[in-house]
C-alpha cells in the first residue's frame, strides 16, 4: 500500500516539475490527482464513464456467455467424437492462434462498428480457449470414476451428464477464467476501433488531449480486471478445487 502511495507521489511531483520546466508537452503528461478527479466527474457529473462502462460490460458479458456456451459444447463434442476431433479439432487449433481482433476488419464490413461486431470479437476471443479446456477436462476425467459408474449401471449420455461433466468442472472453470481474460482484452482492442464503450471513450479523450481522462479509464480497466481475477474467479476456483480434491 505504502509502495503505491510513494509511486503516486513521485508521479505527481514529476507532473508538477513538468508544468514549470516542460520536459514533455504539458498536455500529454497526465496527473494522478486530476485523473481521479476525471474519474469522479465521469461517474457522478457528466456520466460519460458510467455510460461507457455500461456499454462495454454489456458487450463483454454477452460475448463471454456466447463463448462459454459455444466453447463448452464444442469441447464436449471434440472430446467425445474422434471424427470431430480429427477434423474440427485441428480447425480449432488453427483458429486459436489467430488473435480475435484480427477478425475485426471482416466484422466491420459485415456488421459495422457497433455492438454486433464487437460482441463477436469478444466471443471469438474466448471460445477457443474454452473449447480446448473443456475438451481436456472431459478427456482427463479419472477412468476409475467412469468404471465405478458403469458398474452401478450408468452408460451413454447419462454417463456423460452425471459423471464426465461434473468431473470436469475444474477445467471448465479454468476455461471461463481464461475466456474472460481474453474476451476483456479483445473487447478493449475492438472498441478502440469500433464505436461506444470504454475503448472508444479512451480514443475520444486522446483526441481532446485529455490525458487525465485516459488514465481515469485505464484505472477503471485495471479495477475491473482485479475484481474479476482476484475476487470472483480466485475465490470460485479455490472453492471448487478443494471440493474436487485438487489442492
Amino acid at each position, binding site marked *: 500500500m505504502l509502495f503505491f502511495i510513494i509511486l503516486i507521489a513521485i508521479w505527481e511531483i514529476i507532473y508538477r516539475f513538468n508544468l514549470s520546466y516542460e520536459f514533455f508537452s504539458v498536455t500529454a503528461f497526465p496527473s494522478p490527482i486530476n485523473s481521479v478527479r476525471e474519474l469522479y466527474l465521469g461517474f457522478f457529473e457528466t456520466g460519460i464513464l458510467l455510460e461507457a462502462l455500461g456499454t462495454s460490460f454489456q458487450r463483454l458479458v454477452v460475448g463471454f456467455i456466447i463463448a462459454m456456451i459455444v466453447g463448452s459444447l464444442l469441447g464436449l463434442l471434440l472430446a467425445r467424437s474422434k471424427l470431430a476431433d480429427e477434423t474440427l479439432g485441428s480447425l480449432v487449433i488453427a483458429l486459436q492462434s489467430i488473435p480475435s481482433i484480427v477478425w475485426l476488419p471482416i466484422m466491420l464490413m459485415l456488421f459495422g462498428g457497433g455492438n454486433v461486431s464487437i460482441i463477436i470479437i469478444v466471443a471469438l476471443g474466448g471460445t477457443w480457449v474454452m473449447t480446448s479446456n473443456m475438451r481436456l477436462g472431459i478427456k482427463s476425467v479419472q477412468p476409475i470414476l467412469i*468404471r*465405478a459408474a*458403469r*458398474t452401478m*449401471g450408468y452408460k451413454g449420455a447419462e454417463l456423460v451428464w452425471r459423471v464426465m461433466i*461434473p*468431473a470436469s468442472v475444474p477445467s471448465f472453470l479454468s476455461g471461463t477464467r481464461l475466456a474472460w481474460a481474453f474476451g476483456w482484452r479483445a473487447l478493449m482492442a475492438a472498441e478502440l476501433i469500433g464505436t461506444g464503450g470504454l475503448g472508444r471513450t479512451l480514443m475520444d479523450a486522446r483526441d481532446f488531449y485529455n490525458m487525465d481522462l485516459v488514465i481515469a479509464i485505464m484505472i477503471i480497466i485495471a479495477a475491473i480486471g482485479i475484481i474479476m481475477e482476484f475476487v470472483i474467479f480466485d475465490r470460485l476456483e479455490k472453492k471448487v478445487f478443494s471440493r474436487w480434491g485438487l489442492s
Partner: protein
Amino acid sequence: MADVLIDQVEKTFYDKTKDTSFTVFKDIQAEIKSGEFVSLLGPSGCGKSTLLNIIAGLEEPTSGVVEVGGRRVTGPGPDRGVVFQESALMPWQTVLDNVMFGLKKKMNKEEAKERAEYFLKLVHLSKFIHSYPHELSGGMKQRVSIARTLALDPDILLMDEPFGALDEQTRSMLHKEVTYIWEETQKTVVFVTHNIRESILLSDRIVLMGTRPGRIVEVFDVPMERPRKTSSKEFGELEERIQQKLAKEIEKVMREELGDDYNSKKGALLYHTDRDMGNHI
C-alpha cells in the same frame, strides 16, 4: 445367489502401431461357489485385477467365457458390485449422495436416501453423511465405497485391492468389518490382493496366480475357524507354504523388470570399479 465360472479365459493386448501383442494370462479355469470368499493372490503383473475386471464386465476376455449365475458376462450388471483400490467416489458429491448415486437409478429419492443411510450406519459413518470425500481419511473413503456397493445389493462383491493403500491399523479394522459383513450378508466375495496375510485372514480359498504368462499356480483351501489369528500355528504354516510358491514368481518378475542386475541372493551387490566414490580425495 450365483456361482462364478471362469472357463478357459485369455486376455491379450494388441498394439496395432507396433504390431505386437502381450498376453496377460491364458487358460484360466476357476469356479467360485455362491457364498464363498475367494482371494486372487499374486505378484504385480499376473493379471489378477484384469481377471476381476473381466468378471465385473469392465473388460472383455480375448477368448473364453465368464459366467455368473449361469449367464454369460457381457458387461457390467447389477448382480456384481465392485470396490476399487482407490475409493472412486465422486468428489463433487457428499458421502450420502455418493451412496445414493447408484440407488437413484433403481428407486425413488426417499427410498434411496433411507437405504443409503442404513448402509452408512453399517460401516459406522453416520456422522459423516454430509461430508465431502476430500474431508475423509483413506479408510473412511473405502468404507463409503463399500457401503455404496453393498447398498446396491449385488450377489457378488468384487474387491480390487480395496485396502492396499491403507495403513496397517485401519486395514485390520476393515478386515474385521468385511468378515462381519460377509458373514451377515452371505454374499460371494472375490478379493484381489498381493498380501498373503490378508488373503489367509479373510478367505475360504486362495487362488495363487503366477506371472509371465499369467496363470493359476495353485489353489489353497483355508479350513481355519473365524475369527482367525495371525499368531496361530496353522496360519504360520499356510503363510510359509504360499510364501515359498510366491517367492519364485516374484523373482521372475524382478528379473524381467530389472534385467540381469537383479540377484536376490545375499552379498551380490553390484558396483562398477570406475564409479567415482570419492576415494581419490
